[in-house]
């Protein structure tokens, strides 16, 4: 009996530090965001009604969704053939590609954002190339929706490749071979055997990239158009420039709600424990 009680005590002794720490330094600040979104100073819903009635906020929210969806689809379309060839060819090709992807994965977002700043800049190589091809004057590339979208695809592609690869490498190559020997065309064998088997990787990669994109702050702020903000950039502006903590809190709660909805959907259909491998 005492050993059982001791075991219980030990269990909570092991858990107490991290639970206490997260309660004080994570849950309290998070609840403050919820609190400030409805208290100013008394209870009010004005920050939410402002958000709902003002067309500007809807535009930001819709634009964020649109960008996130677009980045996710582009990243998938680009990452899929890459991951597929890595699994198909293997050997030195696979090692090299995975090396490049890992390198990009570990390189700071800020370093990569800076690189795009140079490439798309007014004195950058892309505009120079366009002018050489006779597109004079070359269009402004930086600080547009195009530039932030392109950079986000580049930043998030490694997540997509690794998510796809981890599922694809477990697919038995004999299955496609069997389909081929039974008379399926190479494309049919891919479409009806390989593609459905790689679906978990597609779902994982897309969920990760979409969620990271929804709350993306650094790159849209540095490279994107100031007139077409994403929601995280808007929150930043409400904090830094307008010192409107009530509005910033309401916007944050909306971003949080959207993010949690995506997670909940994923959890409902796949199970959250699968998302991180």
């Amino acid at each position, binding site marked *: 009996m005492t050993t059982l009680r001791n075991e219980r005590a030990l269990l909570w002794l092991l858990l107490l530090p991290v639970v206490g720490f997260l309660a004080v330094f994570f849950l309290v600040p998070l609840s403050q965001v919820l609190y400030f979104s409805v208290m100013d100073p008394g209870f009010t819903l004005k920050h939410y009604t402002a958000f709902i009635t003002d067309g500007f906020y809807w535009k930001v929210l819709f634009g964020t969704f649109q960008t996130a969806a677009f980045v996710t689809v582009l990243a998938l379309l680009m990452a899929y053939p890459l991951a597929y060839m890595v699994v198909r060819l293997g050997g030195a090709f696979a090692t090299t590609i995975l090396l490049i992807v890992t*390198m990009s994965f570990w390189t700071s977002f800020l370093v990569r954002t800076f690189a795009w700043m140079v490439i798309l800049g007014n004195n950058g190589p892309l505009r120079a190339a366009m002018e050489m091809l006779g597109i004079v004057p070359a269009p402004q590339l930086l600080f547009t929706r195009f530039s932030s979208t392109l950079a986000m695809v580049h930043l998030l592609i490694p997540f997509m490749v690794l998510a796809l690869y981890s599922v694809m490498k477990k697919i038995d190559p004999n299955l496609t071979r069997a389909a081929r020997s039974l008379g399926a065309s190479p494309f049919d064998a891919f479409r009806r055997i390989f593609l459905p088997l790689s679906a978990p990787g597609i779902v994982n990669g897309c969920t990760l990239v979409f969620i990271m994109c929804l709350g993306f702050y650094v790159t849209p702020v540095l490279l994107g158009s100031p007139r077409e903000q994403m929601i995280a950039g808007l929150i930043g502006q409400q904090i830094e420039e307008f010192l409107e903590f009530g509005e910033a809190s309401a916007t944050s709660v909306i971003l949080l709600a959207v993010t949690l909805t995506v997670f909940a959907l994923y959890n409902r259909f796949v199970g959250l424990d699968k998302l991180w491998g």
Partner: protein
Amino acid sequence: MRITLALALLVALFVLGPLLVVVPMSFSTANSFEFPPPGYWLGYYRSFFGDERWLTPVFNSIGIGLATMLLTMLLVIPASFAMVRQRFMGRSAINLLLMMPMIVPNIVMALGYYTYFSQLKIIHSPLGVVLAHTCLSVPVCYLIIAASLKGFDRNLERAAMNLGASPLRTFWEVTFPVLRPGFLVGGLFAFIHSFDEAVVAIFISGQAASTLPRKMFDSIRIEADPIISVVSTLLFAVVLLAVLSPLAWRAIVKARSQFRAA
């Protein structure tokens, strides 16, 4: 097949190309972002290594990263033992709590910390950044350490106890040494997570405790300071070294064993 390969190679180029752009930029003589560079020199490297405004954030980031690493490991390692080895009421709730910092968008936490740490008077201090980064590093550190714990063969412990070792001695002489590499990897990830974290640091580290990502963000947004290309190149070089060294090490070991055999 051939078309897919061509497509794959194009994507690989798209992934790699931008990483390589920063290297020649750091040797450029231009004082704005111009590519290809008009000429080459090492001037901006000299400026970087003599510039307090850049070196202080570097040291801040390293210090904050190390403190975050230690604190995260102290919190996560004991909890992982409880979570992996025991079944108890509330376990899934605690699991959710441990993963939550990864689910909540960083900008939301940036706002939370901004107001909370202002009240606690630890905003713009290294302490505030360490506390925030520790919360944010818990999930990744927990995932890694819990995974290494799950892979641990408990028969090793049973054997030690069977041979008369006390539970404490078993832990120190069997369990801990076997798991140490996993713990260190978990800690390393916590360090990297803190070192690379930008959003929360941008809002709460201020001038005094400015981390490197915050300094880089400001320098891109406000100053267009060419020294950023030096910093970017150095950070890229560290990644390159870390990614390539295991490969090089394997090649050396292989070459040596072939040499022995010959």
